[in-house]
């Protein structure tokens, strides 16, 4: 009990003695975590959106004439031979028209002057859920264009490609901010502890002469790093959550955020970022302790 009380009291003493530097350190840790978590949050949401778009992927083959019922199995066979698919749906002109009417809902009257035959028939090909490779999608599109009466294939691969490129770019940004986070946190904590050690040099020397154990001298410094990591990460994540809440409430309604179903980190990921922050700062402390304190 006394041991713990001493460690905590000594940590408090260290923090008080170098409070100016401690505040700066806390700010740096907070900003580093905020920066990293911000990009990671966007990246995380893009990944989720990308997965959802992949799930909804379908290739539509527009035909210049309807495929007679008796020829459909042969076409289905050709498609299956090229690659496994989840399902194949043949859409007639009438069916396409009725779908459009349903989609237009109250504005379906605009279709009154158009006949039910104005839309082209099509084949909807739903690839397996695991088909996310844009090259394969493109190859699939090229093959579908060779089917009898195929006029055009719509796969949305161009849009997916751009989305993928953006996600890849974001991945690089997240990695860079992660590296920045690691460097800045370990450096700043290590530097702060160095200042603590320098400011207490005389006291540490006397403690050593009085028989202070390694734990008595090192644990408060380690605890100082852990505390900085915990507080800095909590504040950084808290600030991001505040920003997220503010953004979602301010930009609610139809828009970009709703399109992607923008969400905050799940609790386990939040805890993981927090723990990573604590671990990095503790690592920085350990590095400093080993380097600057010999007992």
């Amino acid at each position, binding site marked *: 009990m006394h041991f713990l009380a001493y460690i905590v009291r000594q940590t408090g003493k260290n923090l008080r003695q170098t409070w100016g530097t401690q505040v700066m350190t806390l700010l740096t840790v907070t900003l580093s975590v905020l920066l990293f978590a911000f990009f990671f949050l966007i990246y995380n949401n893009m990944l989720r959106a990308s997965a959802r778009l992949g799930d909804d992927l379908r290739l539509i083959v527009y035909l210049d004439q309807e495929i007679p019922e008796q020829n459909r199995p042969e076409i289905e066979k050709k498609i299956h031979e090229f690659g496994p698919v989840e399902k194949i749906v043949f859409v007639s002109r009438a069916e396409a028209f009725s779908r459009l009417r349903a989609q237009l809902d109250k504005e379906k009257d605009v279709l009154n002057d158009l006949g039910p035959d104005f839309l082209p028939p099509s084949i909807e090909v739903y690839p397996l859920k695991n088909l996310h490779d844009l090259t394969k999608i493109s190859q699939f599109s090229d093959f579908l264009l060779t089917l009898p009466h195929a006029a055009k294939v719509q796969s949305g691969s161009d849009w997916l490609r751009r989305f993928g490129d953006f996600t890849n770019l974001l991945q690089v940004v997240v990695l860079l901010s992660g590296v920045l986070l690691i460097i800045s946190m370990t450096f700043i904590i290590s530097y702060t502890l160095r200042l603590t050690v320098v400011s207490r040099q005389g006291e540490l*020397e006397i403690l050593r002469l009085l*028989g202070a154990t390694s734990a008595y001298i090192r644990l408060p410094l380690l605890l100082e790093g852990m505390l900085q990591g915990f507080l800095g990460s909590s504040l950084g994540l808290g600030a991001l959550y505040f920003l997220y809440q503010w953004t979602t409430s301010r930009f609610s309604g139809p828009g970009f955020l709703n399109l992607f179903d923008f969400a905050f980190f799940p609790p386990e990921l939040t805890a993981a970022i927090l723990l990573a922050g604590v671990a990095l700062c503790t690592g920085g402390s350990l590095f400093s302790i080993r380097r600057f304190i010999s007992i």
Partner: protein
Amino acid sequence: MPRDASTDKPLVELVNVTKIYPPDIVALEDVSLRIYKGEIFFLTGMSGAGKTTLIKLICRLETPTRGLIEVAGRDISRISPAGIQRMRQKIGIAYQEFRLLEKQTVLQNIAMAMEVTYASTKAIHARVDELLALLNLSDKRDKRTGELSRGEQQRVALARAAANGPSLLLADEPTGNLDPAATELVINLFRHLNEKNGSTIVVATHDKSIYAETEHRVMDLHNGHLSAHPNRAPRQIELFEA
């Protein structure tokens, strides 16, 4: 009371200890010495005779160039760093240069010695008050040590060394800055520790007034060589040679 060397085991034993500082300054040469449990031992000699070196060697602040040093029967060169720290908790050391934190109060400076042993705050305060009363410093308890006179600082350093009721107290020139009245207080503190706690006290000094009348053992260091003090009884030479 002087101890009987024939029956007691030595608390500190030095066997043929030599200490040479680089490049070739011989501080101690071939020194052999036994200090017995419960003994008050005076080590005299001129400045630079090697008294401080001997004290530093006993608590392993220095390591000997040659020879063996045992404390409580253990070769201290073989004790682990953690073991040395535990050993230092039981050895009180009053340094010649005091080594106080001048921005901290008398209470805080003395408390440090007990805090490293995780003593309770209540016990620390009680002990500090007791020691300050013994050294006539009660009114200085909450003063910063930087504001005290040299003599007062010296007594604070002694109080810190005595705080844990050490089994061995090493005092390096403990009366160097004290007037006769304060010197008397320090001698009384040593007696108190020796009689109440059974502490072994080693006093390195060139202040004749504190050992002139003593019945305890006095030995002299001269140019790194240890010998019985020239003005002491032959019995002490026997103890040295035992």
